[in-house]
């Protein structure tokens, strides 16, 4: 039993040291088999305000001859449309912020892939369907526009324009045998040569064909028109620009801050709770490493300023849960129970209380994740941190302490426990 627990302890320490080195960069550049370890922050999906970023500022102004034009309302509307378009494009970690009353600042993480995004943003999305000189449909007739995708049979890409009820009848009149073709344009440029149908279209859906080489144009039509019309003049500030590496060291600084926090907790745990604190300290380290892996691998979490604040709060919550568990064990021992019984009963007694306490940040985390908008990263980090806090404080501490007891460290005083405390 003693030897088995000794082996367990050695394996546990080795695993923690290995994972700790891996998580915090000690193995950077080392190759084991085919795995080459990356720089520690290389595994995170950093937000635009933490990592390098690419910034563009779009200025909104009144269109010519607009008369009494509310620039502030138009800017707010444009911002919402920008967000819709970026969502539809699947752009991740983008920050879209209104700057003053007439400008929108768009920040994209990383330093590449931005000019494509820009193409989707600076178009107002003015949609026109004409027949000869007659204007048939505009944005106000459109309910939604959907990208259908590639059809292998025809070898074309299709976009469906769903018209609203008022326009359905007009479309039915314009389609069918012997009817002419319709021209489609967006922002004054023809995007699909002609549209015609030999059958009468009664469901109000215009299926527009594009050749595969025009895939981007099809996507642009679908996204820009579907998101709504920006009824204003948009000026992108002299092309795309970069902010350079102003926040280059941000990830390192936040990593150092997290380690400093953990160090304070470890010192307190060992000083105040001795061997029981050592068990909690090992459990805490495992939790922080797990949090690091959560941050690196959880698809929806991008570590921006709010995400970093959430991760920091998660470390505090994990520490809090560990200390609450230790107090429960101390309480049971003070009541006269044996060391093992105090461990078991303490952990069982505190379970419901801790689960309820940790359910609060977990639920808040889910709420902010879903509806948090700019602060959703805070919610995701909080959610992950709360789950890890519950798992580690309720399961790990007891098992680690039992390994210590198993190797013969069974003197209660060594665990900082006292009767009648």
């Amino acid at each position, binding site marked *: 039993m003693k030897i088995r627990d000794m082996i367990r302890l050695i394996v546990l320490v080795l695993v923690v040291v290995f994972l700790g080195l891996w998580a915090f960069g000690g193995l950077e550049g080392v190759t084991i088999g085919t795995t080459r370890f990356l720089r520690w922050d290389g595994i995170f999906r950093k937000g635009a305000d933490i990592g390098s970023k690419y910034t563009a500022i779009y200025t909104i102004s009144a269109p010519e001859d607009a008369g009494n034009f509310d620039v502030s309302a138009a800017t707010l509307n444009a911002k919402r449309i920008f967000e819709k378009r970026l969502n539809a494009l699947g752009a991740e970690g983008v920050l879209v912020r209104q700057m003053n009353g007439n400008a929108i600042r768009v920040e994209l993480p990383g330093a590449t892939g931005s000019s494509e995004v820009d193409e989707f943003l600076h178009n107002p999305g003015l949609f026109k369907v004409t027949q000869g000189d007659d204007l048939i449909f505009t944005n106000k007739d459109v309910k939604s526009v959907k990208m259908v995708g590639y059809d292998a049979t025809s070898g074309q890409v299709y976009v469906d324009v769903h018209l609203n009820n008022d326009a359905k009848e007009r479309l039915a009149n314009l389609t069918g045998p012997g009817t002419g073709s319709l021209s489609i344009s967006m922002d004054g440029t023809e995007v699909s040569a002609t549209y015609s149908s030999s059958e009468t279209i009664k469901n109000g859906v215009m299926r527009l064909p594009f050749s595969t080489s025009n895939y981007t144009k099809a996507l642009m039509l679908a996204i820009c028109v579907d998101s709504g019309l920006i009824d204003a003049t948009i000026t992108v500030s002299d092309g795309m620009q970069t902010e350079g590496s102003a926040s280059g060291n941000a990830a390192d600084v936040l990593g150092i*801050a997290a380690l400093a926090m953990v160090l304070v907790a470890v010192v307190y745990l060992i000083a105040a709770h001795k061997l029981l604190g050592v068990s909690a300290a090992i459990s805490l380290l495992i939790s922080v490493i797990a949090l690091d892996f959560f941050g690196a691998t959880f698809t929806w979490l991008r570590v921006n300023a709010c995400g970093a604040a959430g991760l920091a709060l998660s*470390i*505090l919550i994990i520490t809090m849960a560990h200390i609450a568990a230790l107090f429960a064990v101390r309480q049971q021992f003070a009541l006269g129970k044996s060391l093992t019984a105090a461990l078991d009963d303490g952990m069982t007694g505190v379970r419901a209380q801790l689960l309820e306490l940790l359910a609060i940040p977990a639920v808040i985390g889910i709420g902010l994740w879903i509806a948090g908008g700019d*602060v959703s990263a805070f919610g995701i980090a909080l959610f992950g941190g709360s789950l890890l806090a519950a798992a580690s404080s309720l399961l790990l501490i007891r098992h680690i302490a039992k390994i210590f007891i198993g190797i013969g460290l069974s003197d209660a005083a060594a665990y900082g426990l006292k009767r009648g405390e």
Partner: protein
Amino acid sequence: MKNAKWIVLLSCLITVALLACCFIFPFSRTVEAGGTNLITVEFNDSFDRAVVENAMREAGATDVLVLKQVSRTGNTSFEEGTSAQIYFSVPDGTEAKEVYDKAEEILSQTFAFKYPGTLSTLSASLTKQSVISLWPVLIVLVVLLAYAALRFGIRTGVIAAALTLMTGIAVLGVTAIARIGLSHYTIAALLGTAALSELFVFLFAFTKRDFAKRTAGNVTEAAAKRVTVFAVLLSCMAIVGLVSVLILGNAALKGFALTALIGTVFSACAAVFTLPALASLLSKAN
């Protein structure tokens, strides 16, 4: 608890004073959330963004954003240009032109200008963006307060509301005094510390309920003592982390760290002093 009413009174006075500061000292303008001026400058050669930023700050700008023009040379490569767009905010009552002229003087010692540019002032209305970002957070905080009141009684709800308000007002008040600009970093910091305050109240409520099941003594005081241990430790951890960011971080992170530091200190003080005093007063009143 001794001096409970004096501690609560002092906390209220500090909160009111800091609330007044929010109105007396206008928040420092940032490019993100204040009146912004824009100037496009063309240098003769490539330039260092940080030097331009520092020159602007030295000249009196409260916040600066310097964008360097780049042109794409490949899928992942860019060539940096020589023109810059400088977005900057100035304190109330200061002319943007004055600040820029001074900065130009400083910059001309390092860089040669091809085209010094003309200044334009963008709309100076305070953006609604910060408020819009805050609404889900505000809803969450209110839901938490309601949960605290329903789960642990109205008194706990009152304590949670008081502590959250105190921390929030303290952060905003000191932010105004220290001239830290309002930005999304400030919001992130405010969010973290308000959550920390509510966490302490929940911890207090759970501990108090746990003690009440097992002992017949003064459970409010015992629970407050337990929360003090948590508050001191967790705040020390947060302070150490934030001081590291303050020492090592860049300008944007420093603003975030300073705001969070202020919030952490206030939430710890509120948990250690105000929480037991308020709980004791409310228990007596009951």
